[in-house]
């Protein structure tokens, strides 16, 4: 079975691409780990045109409803490992199967950046979390650490001020980098200890997290903080490892031209996984539509 198109990812970019592909009557497949991507994780959204206010969950439900209206062939809970073009065929390999297609749109988005220290994987969801919005309420009266001095780190800290007993804000740079207005709020709280110039070296625990090892810049000795919760908020990384032989920029984002073409003819990319500036839901959706129309044009030229 040879598809016209395989869309990888079902966030705003992938879903919009699927709507356009369906309306062009392409023979296509959507493969995705989940529906909504980062939109599903978002709290309140007030800048998606047409909705003055909508929650991330509600917008995700709307996206899904729109896609399903077209009876799209959808493989959920399936991770794409590799996308590679050999000859005239694009091969898409997943955790479950292998597929062949004439074209592909990579819309695999971004995920939370990991610390890359010992203990991180072992204690994920056992005191260590990447979603403060989800899990913060479970740390009532506990001592916790937030890693990251940018906006998401400050946001997590501000959420935790109302919940935790004490918060260590661990920041690798000499100063906090998030918005000044948030920094002021964090500094005002007596519950927060800011540790600048400080690196995390390990996550430790028994069944659950019970500590974090840190090291101050320029010092040799490591310090152990006793914490029961660790919130990792050090930004996002593009899910671009799957793209074989495809050009990326220094941050690992897939390079695309203004028609969403990568350096490999027939492989397109859209949304947060690309080097298109500004990561926004409305932009990802627009890019998804451009990519699908680009694919349609490309397929017509093949005939």
């Amino acid at each position, binding site marked *: 079975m040879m598809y016209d198109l395989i869309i990888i990812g079902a966030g705003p970019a992938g879903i919009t691409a699927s709507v356009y592909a369906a309306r062009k009557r392409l023979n296509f497949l959507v493969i995705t780990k*989940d529906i909504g991507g980062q939109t*599903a*994780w*978002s*709290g309140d959204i007030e800048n998606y045109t047409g909705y003055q206010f909508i*929650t*991330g*969950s509600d917008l*995700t*439900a709307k996206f899904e409803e729109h896609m399903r209206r077209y009876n799209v062939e959808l493989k*959920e*809970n399936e991770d794409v490992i590799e996308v590679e073009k050999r000859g005239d065929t694009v091969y898409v390999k997943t955790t479950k199967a292998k597929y062949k297609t004439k074209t592909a749109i990579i819309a695999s988005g971004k995920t939370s950046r990991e610390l890359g220290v010992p203990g991180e994987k072992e204690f994920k*969801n*056992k*005191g260590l*979390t990447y*979603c403060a*919005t*989800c*899990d*913060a*309420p*479970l740390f*009532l009266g506990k001592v916790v650490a937030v890693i990251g001095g940018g906006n998401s780190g400050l946001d997590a800290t501000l959420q935790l001020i109302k919940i935790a007993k004490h918060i260590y804000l661990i920041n690798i740079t000499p100063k906090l980098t998030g918005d000044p207005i948030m920094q002021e709020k964090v500094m005002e709280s007596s519950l927060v200890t800011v540790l600048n110039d400080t690196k995390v070296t390990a996550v430790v625990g028994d*069944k*659950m997290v019970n500590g974090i090892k840190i090291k101050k810049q320029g010092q040799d000795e490591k310090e152990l903080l006793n914490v029961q919760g660790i919130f990792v908020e050090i930004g996002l990384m593009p899910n671009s490892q799957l793209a074989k032989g495809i050009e990326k920029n220094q941050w690992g984002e897939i390079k695309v031209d203004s028609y969403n073409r990568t350096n490999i003819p027939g492989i397109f990319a859209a949304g947060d996984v690309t080097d298109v500036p500004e990561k926004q839901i409305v932009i990802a959706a627009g890019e998804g539509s451009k990519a699908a129309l680009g694919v349609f044009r490309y397929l017509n030229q093949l005939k």
Partner: protein
Amino acid sequence: MAKKVTIYSTPTCPFCIRTKQFLKENNIKFEEIDVSLDEAKAEEMIKKSGQMGVPVVDIDGEIIVGFDKDRLKETLGL
């Protein structure tokens, strides 16, 4: 007999909301526990699932962590 379904969640967690939406769409009755308000229930959830992420769904003793549509469908026989 209908299976007993309990969901442990927090009000702010997007995948808790999606899980509850999914259950409602499929006319599954469930008991909802807000672990941000009830520390003892939070402990119970951690003990049952061996981890601290929400949502946790308990279907007649079978524990499902996260919004796992496939496993929910399978366990509920949908």
